[in-house]
């Protein structure tokens, strides 16, 4: 049998046959590693989680025409979207506003992509249903003004500014009434194709983008879109992005502080446990010295045992930590956490380092013991 095999045999025997002691140490390491990996997972996932929460408050970037005569249409909007990372991009909604006449009243109507509007404006409250082609979503104020209700039919007519052509008419049905508490209640929303069927094709007035990203990333994306010089200028919706950034910074700082405090407490807890585990084996260390073990071989044996323990505890802790983070995420943010694969080796390395450090101190002091004390039976 080689020395390495005997070394492994002694370490595994110590871990397996001293189960009750080792389980206590393993538990301390696993719980520490679990809390650490869980909090770090939350720390890194908070921006994504909070970003998703903030997206409920509407778009955080708008695109407008840069005013240099170039077309600002859906194609230009899509080209601008290509400057945004697909992972963070949630949706883009084009808006083209035209004044139409309903019941001989001028009404501002927005042609849009209704499906996208649901993504970029999740806060819209609709009584009825989202409109399909030939249907309209009528703002609450406008519905009261025009006497429209869900299911009402009305005729929409459009005449160009010169009034040289006959107005184009189209019959529509109200699919739902829109309530937002904001200016959206003053408009009627229909599919872009319906608007184009009476007003012809034309430039967009604005496009609203919803992006899950930090303020720095948003600013970089906006600069990239604007500098591409495709007739589109990007602006951040500052009331959204700034408050998001402020909340995120504070929340991440809070999680960071809690993580740091927990890490220190974990280290103390693991160190205390490992110190107790090693200290109670002082007699064994003395015996090994009396049998001719060098200080180095005693350190290697006890450290090897501690490091194996740290490795197993770290692995178990990393997996438990993900479960812990998932539990927190589901209960606080109502969504699943994103697993960070890198966290697995990092947690194991930290656990091994903490355990190693925790073992080193008591082992170093234990190797100073006098083996004669063991001989005497003291």
């Amino acid at each position: 049998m080689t020395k390495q095999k005997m070394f492994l045999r002694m370490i595994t025997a110590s871990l397996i046959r001293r189960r009750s002691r080792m389980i206590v140490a393993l538990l301390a390491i696993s719980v520490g590693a679990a809390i650490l990996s869980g909090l770090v997972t939350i720390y890194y996932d908070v921006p994504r989680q909070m970003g998703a929460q903030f997206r409920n408050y509407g778009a955080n970037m708008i695109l407008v025409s840069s005013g240099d005569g170039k077309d600002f249409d859906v194609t230009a909007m899509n080209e601008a979207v290509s400057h945004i990372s697909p992972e963070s991009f949630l949706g883009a909604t084009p808006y083209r506003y035209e004044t139409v006449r309903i019941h001989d009243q001028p009404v501002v109507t927005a042609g849009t992509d209704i499906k996208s509007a649901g993504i970029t404006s999740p806060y819209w409250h609709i009584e009825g249903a989202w409109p399909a082609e030939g249907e309209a979503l009528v703002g609450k104020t406008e519905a009261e003004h025009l006497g429209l209700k869900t299911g009402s039919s009305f005729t929409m007519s459009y005449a160009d500014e010169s009034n040289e052509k006959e107005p184009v008419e189209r019959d529509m049905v109200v699919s739902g009434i829109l309530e937002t508490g904001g200016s959206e209640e003053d408009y009627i929303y229909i599919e872009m194709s319906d608007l184009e069927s009476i007003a012809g094709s034309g430039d967009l007035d604005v496009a609203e983008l919803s992006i899950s990203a930090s303020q720095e990333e948003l600013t970089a994306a906006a600069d990239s879109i604007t500098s591409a010089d495709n007739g589109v200028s990007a602006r951040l919706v500052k009331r959204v992005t700034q408050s998001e950034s402020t909340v995120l910074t504070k929340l991440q700082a809070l999680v960071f502080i809690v993580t740091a405090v927990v890490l220190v407490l974990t280290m103390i807890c693991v160190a205390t446990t490992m110190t107790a585990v090693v200290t109670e084996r002082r007699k064994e260390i003395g015996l090994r010295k009396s049998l001719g073990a060098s200080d180095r071989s005693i350190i290697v044996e006890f450290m090897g045992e501690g490091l194996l323990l740290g490795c197993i505890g770290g692995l178990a802790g990393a997996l438990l930590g993900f479960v812990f983070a998932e539990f927190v995420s589901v209960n606080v943010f109502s969504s699943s956490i994103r697993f960070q694969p890198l966290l697995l080796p990092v947690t194991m390395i930290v656990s091994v380092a903490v355990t190693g450090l925790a073992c080193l101190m008591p082992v170093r002091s234990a190797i100073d013991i006098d083996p004669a004390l063991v001989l005497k039976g003291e």
Partner: protein
Amino acid sequence: MSLLQLKNISKIYGELKALDDISLEVENGEWLAIMGPSGSGKSTLMNIIGCMDKPSLGEVILDGRDIAKESDKGLTEIRRDKIGLIFQQFHLVNYLTAVENVMVAQYYHSMPDEKEALEALERVGLKDRAKHLPSQLSGGEQQRVCIARALINHPEIVLADEPTGNLDEANENIVIDIFKQLHKEGTTLIVVTHDPEVGEVAQRMIVLDHGRIKENTINKNFGNT
């Protein structure tokens, strides 16, 4: 030249002389018993012979090396290579089996060899208990594992501290029989004991009192018991 020579050694703790100008020679293959009451200096002398302590004065020559001049590392090497220790309280590693406990001594000395360790256990009549943990062994069996461990590296000296102190009469006889066998095979034995029955079976007996050798007696009946 004697295997072990103690030349005028003293061990002084403050104003207390635990050993006072002791000179002693132990020949290769000799069986020596060290006796004396508590506080007579038995343990101090054993620690010095066992390379776990150094004398304050004098020389201790073991196999040609003066242990009084050795560093801690040097003492560890001598202990590992030349001395086999047997303890009153056995001191087995409680999570290792009997054979693994024997192999621990091999591990620090040279290369672990399970077959050789099993043979050592067979020599003390414990081959069938080789896979048992110390907690599954009786006191006498644990002491025999301790003896097998002490012998495994073929030490120059086997040094036993009250080897029968925790044993009943039956097990005491088994251990004494093993010592007799070891002596026949040429092993040098130094046994520290306060038990006259154990002391009287040795080839030579010294009695310590207040750190000095009070008696140094050759056992005339040695080999007849």
